[in-house]
């Protein structure tokens, strides 16, 4: 992690990993985000929970540097991600909702992509990609093409690709939502364990309450347009005790206006 940061000289190490201050985004007359402020500390796993239209994807695009705020300030490791896009090379990696694997690359070659873009040496790239495939349990699938893999396996390759560059910040954009319940649960547990082991900062965008409670150190519940409704730090009791889990689940559902 330190090596990655040293390579990006402008990164400031004393600031929160992600910071949004009074951010507003409008598309024409449509307000996507209104006065949004939150911060994610280094090594923290934060769930960004909200229903469709809550501005989750817009917020993620701001952090990724794909979008500039209409007003307010976005900082990633103290850097404006839009204006200084290249400064955040190797700092941010993204796990998307769909696997987004390149069909012409094998599983191993897909994992190598980020390392190749970062100009890693060829042998080191192959070694790291092989290791990461093994860490997500797919060492035997190295030479298979995406169409030869199941949905869960493809998403594992996709997450290995993101983690292989050893990013400081991992953004996960509803990356378990396309999978069936069982596959999603297993993958979520595996990825959660890896992120904690590696002490990565993670912003996990989701609309699934279960995913948020299971994965996060802190849950931010948003209503449209990106208005903070609830902030909660789930405890081990919240996760392990079915009654406590249900209470928290119901509280979040109520805030989101979900009637179950």
């Amino acid at each position, binding site marked *: 992690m330190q090596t990655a940061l040293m390579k990006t000289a402008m990164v400031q190490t004393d600031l929160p990993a992600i910071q949004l201050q009074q951010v507003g985004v409008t598309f024409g007359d449509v307000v996507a985000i209104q006065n949004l402020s939150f911060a994610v500390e280094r090594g923290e796993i934060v769930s960004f929970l909200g229903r469709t239209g809550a501005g989750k994807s817009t917020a993620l695009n701001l952090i990724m540097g794909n979008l500039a705020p209409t007003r307010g300030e976005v900082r990633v490791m103290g850097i404006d991600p839009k204006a200084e896009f290249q400064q955040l090379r190797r700092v941010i990696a993204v796990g998307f909702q769909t696997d987004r694997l390149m069909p012409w690359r094998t599983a191993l070659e897909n994992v190598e992509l980020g390392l*190749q873009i970062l100009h890693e040496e060829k042998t080191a790239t192959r070694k790291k990609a092989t290791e990461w495939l093994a860490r997500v349990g797919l060492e035997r699938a190295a030479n298979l093409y995406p169409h030869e893999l199941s949905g869960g396996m493809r998403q*594992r390759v996709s997450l290995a690709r993101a983690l292989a560059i050893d990013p400081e910040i991992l953004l996960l954009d509803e990356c378990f939502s396309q999978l069936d319940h069982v596959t999603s649960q297993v993958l979520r547990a595996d990825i959660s364990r890896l992120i904690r082991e590696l002490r990565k900062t993670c912003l996990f965008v989701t609309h699934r309450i279960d995913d948020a409670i299971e994965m996060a150190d802190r849950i931010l519940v948003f209503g449209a347009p990106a208005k903070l409704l609830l902030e909660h730090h789930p405890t081990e009791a919240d996760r392990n005790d079915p009654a406590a889990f249900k209470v928290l689940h119901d509280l979040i559902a109520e805030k989101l206006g979900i009637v179950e």
Partner: protein
Amino acid sequence: MTIEVMQEKPALPRLPKHERYAGIITAVAIVILLQIASMVAPHYIAPPPADILSSLWNKLLPLYGDMLLTLGRLALALGCAMLVGTGLGLVMGMFPTARPYVRSVVVIDTGIPALSWMLIAVFWFRMPELRIFFILLVIVIPFYALGVADAIRAMPKDLLEMCESFRPNRWQVLRYLIFPHVLPYIFATTRSVIGYATRMIIFAELIAATAGIGAQMGLAQANFDIATILAWTILLVGLNIVLQQLVTWVEQYMLSYRQAIEVR
């Protein structure tokens, strides 16, 4: 954690037996028709298949130099057209400001008849090789340019966003994403254009050259030698089939990742 991988490679679809022999049956039928025609029409209009075969063997085979010359011209011009056309297509696909200008040039080019280019080339260039190269280049470039530009337009935005999340430079986007994505389109264009390019090169040689298959066909026409013209024609059909197959083999090798699908 280890995920068990179950893999069963789908078998490549094979043509049904009756389709496999369709080409041979059609060729035999044409030979029979030619034989019947030669019995009812004068031989300077419809020569018997035996005369055509004799021309093929005795007159054409010694002219292998002309065949190689035509093939060389075709390969060079097609290769250059592929490079230039792909380059123009990439400019159209990647630079929105330049797109309308380049597209206008390409569209104007597609509207100019091949014959106009041939006559213009005769005036512009003294060397026959340069004339033929130029003619084929200007005729074939738009196919590649438009094909590649359309391929870039059809590129999934998801893949571009994923690639950009690693913050690549423009060259890396081209190398890792755009080029592999447009490659199948380049092969598809080559397969569809190769027959047309062969016809055009023969035409260009007929008008603008003194050697090559086109020039030899012109000579046969001047000598009222219909058997030789038909022999050249048969040879060109065969050549086209061989070239198509060659492109298909290279394509299958280069794009081996593609999934074989069968529509019911």
